[in-house]
């Protein structure tokens, strides 16, 4: 029989009985990061394949949303900081061992690049937009000139951005539930999947929607595979990891995860998309919305569950 009790001290707010360092801001930011990664990746990819006209929504329209989404994400990050006045310190140094640091710098790169990337498309859509602004014209010119290098940059940067949202969490080895290398690829794939879902929602072209539906199917299947392997890995690992996995296998997160994320967010969209591929007519918005919902709930649950898992004094005073 073992009885462990913290008899005095601790119970620090936000630390005990369960860690609550991050609320909604971080999961929202992670979701946006993944979504934007997906958007920019596909935009760049199909641009480089010169299929910009063929897949208008993917290449031209979706990236328009990237800068505002990133702005929201960055604002959410800023809101999360508890020492806000000093946020600028983040950009006075780069610390290669801290995923948060190079994530901050990556975002520093991606954000202006996404604005540059979006400008020509914006001009296409709204020719009169900021016509008289010298800077806007200059930047649009640049963007058009360097479109190809930017696109290549995006291929790499979006993969980094997508992966980093997962690696960020897995770098915190003190939270057993996040302590798996699968989290990086999982969030990358999930991010791309939400990107395709977003594109599907935006697209008016049947052909485009079909293509991205197929891409999404592949991504969802990969996601399912990764999730299953993540749990297998936990159950075969140490006691703390087993306990972390048990949060989802009989613990408090069981119902919400397997229903909303796994079933409604992954399996159902996969089946629907399969059915559509086979010719059944179902409004395409359904799987797309489900995927987006699943994506955001996944991140909320993962961030919360990670904070519920710990090495010492689990669920204890």
């Amino acid at each position: 029989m073992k009885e462990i009790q913290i008899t005095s001290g601790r119970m620090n707010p936000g630390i005990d009985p369960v860690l609550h360092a991050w609320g909604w801001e971080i999961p929202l930011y992670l979701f946006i990061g993944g979504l934007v990664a997906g958007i920019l990746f596909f935009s760049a990819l199909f641009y480089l394949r010169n299929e910009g006209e063929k897949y208008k929504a993917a290449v031209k329209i979706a990236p328009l949303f990237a800068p505002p989404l990133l702005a929201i994400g960055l604002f959410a990050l800023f809101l999360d900081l508890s020492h806000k006045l000093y946020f600028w310190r983040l950009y006075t140094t780069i610390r290669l061992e801290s995923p948060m640091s190079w994530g901050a710098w990556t975002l520093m790169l991606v954000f202006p690049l996404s604005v540059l990337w979006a400008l020509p498309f914006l001009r296409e859509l709204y020719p009169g937009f900021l016509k008289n602004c010298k800077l806007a014209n200059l930047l649009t010119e640049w963007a058009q000139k360097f479109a190809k290098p930017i696109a290549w940059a995006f291929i790499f940067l979006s993969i980094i951005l997508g992966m980093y949202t997962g690696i960020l969490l897995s770098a915190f080895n003190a939270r057993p539930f996040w302590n798996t290398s699968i989290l990086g690829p999982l969030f990358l794939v999930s991010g791309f999947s939400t990107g395709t879902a977003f594109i599907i929602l935006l697209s008016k072209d049947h052909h485009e929607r079909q293509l991205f539906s197929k891409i999404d199917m592949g991504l969802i299947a990969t996601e399912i595979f990764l999730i299953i392997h993540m749990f297998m890995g936990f159950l075969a690992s140490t006691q703390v990891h087993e306990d972390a996995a048990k949060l989802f296998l009989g613990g408090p997160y069981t119902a919400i995860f397997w229903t909303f994320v796994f079933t409604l967010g992954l399996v159902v969209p996969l089946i629907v998309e399969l059915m559509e591929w086979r010719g059944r007519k179902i409004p395409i918005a359904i799987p797309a919305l489900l995927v987006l919902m699943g994506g955001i709930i996944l991140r909320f649950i993962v961030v919360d569950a990670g904070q519920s898992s710990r090495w010492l004094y689990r669920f204890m005073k």
Partner: protein
Amino acid sequence: MNSKMKRREFIKIAGAGTGAMVVAPKLYAEFGKKDEELLESGSAERTPTYCEICFWKCAGWVYKKDGKPWKIVGNEDDPNSRGRFCPRGTGGIGAYTDPDRLKKPLLRVEKNGKQVFKEVSWDEALNFIADKLRDIAQKHGPECVALFSHGSGGSYFKNLLAAFGTKNVAAPSYAQCRGPREEAYLLTFGDGVGSPERTDIVNSKCLVLLGSHIGENMHNGQVQEFSQAVANGATVITVDPRFSTAASKSKYWLPIKPGTDLALLLAWIHVIIYEELYDKDYVKKYTIGFEQLKQAVKHNTPEWAYPITTIKPHIIRQTAREMAMHAPATIVHPGRHVTWYGDDTQRVRAGAILNALLGSWGRRGGFYFPAKAHVPKPPIPKYPKPRRDWRKAFPDQFPLANLALSSGICDATIPSAERNCSFKAWIVYGTNLIQTLPQPQKTLEAIQNLELLVAIDILPAEITGWADVVLPECTYLERYDDLRISPGRVASVALRAPAFKPKYDSKPAYWIARELAKRLGLEKYFPYEKIEDYLDYRLKAIGSSLEEMKKIGVKLIENPEHRFYLEEGEDYEFGTPSGKIELYSTTLADYGFDPIPRYTHHEEPPDGYYRLLYGRAPMHSFGRTINNPNLSQLMKENEVWINRKVAEQWGIKNGEYIVLENQDGIRSRPIKAKVTERIRHDAVFMVHGFGHSDKRLHRAYHRGADDQKLISRVKLDPIMGGTGMRVNFVTFRKEEA
């Protein structure tokens, strides 16, 4: 303001005219947080003091930074603390900063048919008290005024009341705590155990603890010596139904059935006598009554004790032999709070007898003779002689009580046909009688019969809710007090000087007592207006001065001629009637009590009930620290320890809140259950001092449960009137929580 009050009501919140709500100061915002600022710690200022949070009165320094309270640290020269304070002393800063402190004198008045407290000036409050006291003295006699006191300021009120004409002064620490042990050791060795205890723990090789939970009771010097002894490899034998901290550091833990300790002690005495393990020379030279003792314990074999105590016979023999092996450096610890079952003087005396057989009294590693110091006081006129004292209320009872019984005075406040007078006024200094005296229902009944109840306190403890006048004293950090003169390994004198000015409208007890004395025409008993001059007089008499003491804090009074131990073969006269250690007590025999302790069976809990045991926690001093901002966060509430198997039977889960109900149907507040292996199946345990019902104590209000409320039954010790409190049984009520 002399309106006759109807039945007294408990005033929960300060009523009319209490001023704006006090907002708790944001302490952390007052200090710089950067590491660099903390680096300049050398520029702080410090004042000497001695702690008031428990009776150990450790001397230390109060540090201030920029005039703001910083920390309290021990005085290196102090033999009581050896430079290190316990958590309560360290947290003493919280006593000063506690925003719930009493702020102004309060007077009970009636407003719109309700009884409320009105904030009044000191003049008004003190005049009221003086008038009432004079009134009572005239109608009933000054002896009908009693003082309950606990703390450094009590001596001034004792002086005041003695001058007024009454010697009825009671400290609850006697009949509710250590009274039986003082009498037991007085009867056996001719000298009490004393405070601090004269146990030579640091040199001891074997320490036997009966219920003493050293480490959870944080008597600073004693815990320090205990941990040193443990580190030196001393054998510790702990007899406790609960696996206490001390038990966890023991070689032997004897989970004894509660109520049967005397049987175990007699069995040990039996083994040590019949296996001839006692110190023959010592017993021959210094004791009388050995043959009677040997005869009396003939049948108290370990086999006899086994079914009674549930301690196996071979363990009883093994532990007895271990004690004898290390004798005379063996201490059978007398304990401190020993008012358990009503036969406590006899039980502690059995321990004393065991010590005598092992030859540890006056020997190294056993009990030393403490060095004492005498510091002269300025002369005052003789006190008038009272015509009667509290003893008259209990003729032929408690003949060997050397100090007044708090419970006795309480009882004698309730009018009864057998008595022609009862107490009419109580002055309560620094003790929350509602949680201190057992059978609180009796305390409340007594209070209803008082014509005057004055409560002098620092916090709005429950007793203040029943008072006619509440006087706010400032904390020990804001006042001078009389010198602390401690006996011990070296006698010492410690100074308490104020580190801060009294907060709000609070005043030191010396001033309060003197002001009352002035109004009663007894000023000449307080010759010095300023206590500093009084202190300076006393200090100059021993070759020091107030100035010097302010700089050093503690002065050691060395006496190179003092001998701590008996010399080999020395002739020594003990303070007993026979001059020898009385294994057979002639005094007890004279009064018709058992001259040698005899085991009697104590009532056991009925089915479904468990004996209520209580104790301490190291970060609290009973009720007085629960509201302390620094200490309350270390332990916010108490828990009731329940045996794991018992909890399973009842379906009680760890951390669940349940209600306890005792044999008289009295219910406790909901209390958290600690389901543990660390306690026997026939008892439950909780820390005393929680469950406050006064809303003005914001951090303590309704946290945990009050065990005293459940102690509605006591067994009186016929020898000295101690109230045995561990005779209540509780059951669990899950649905009520």
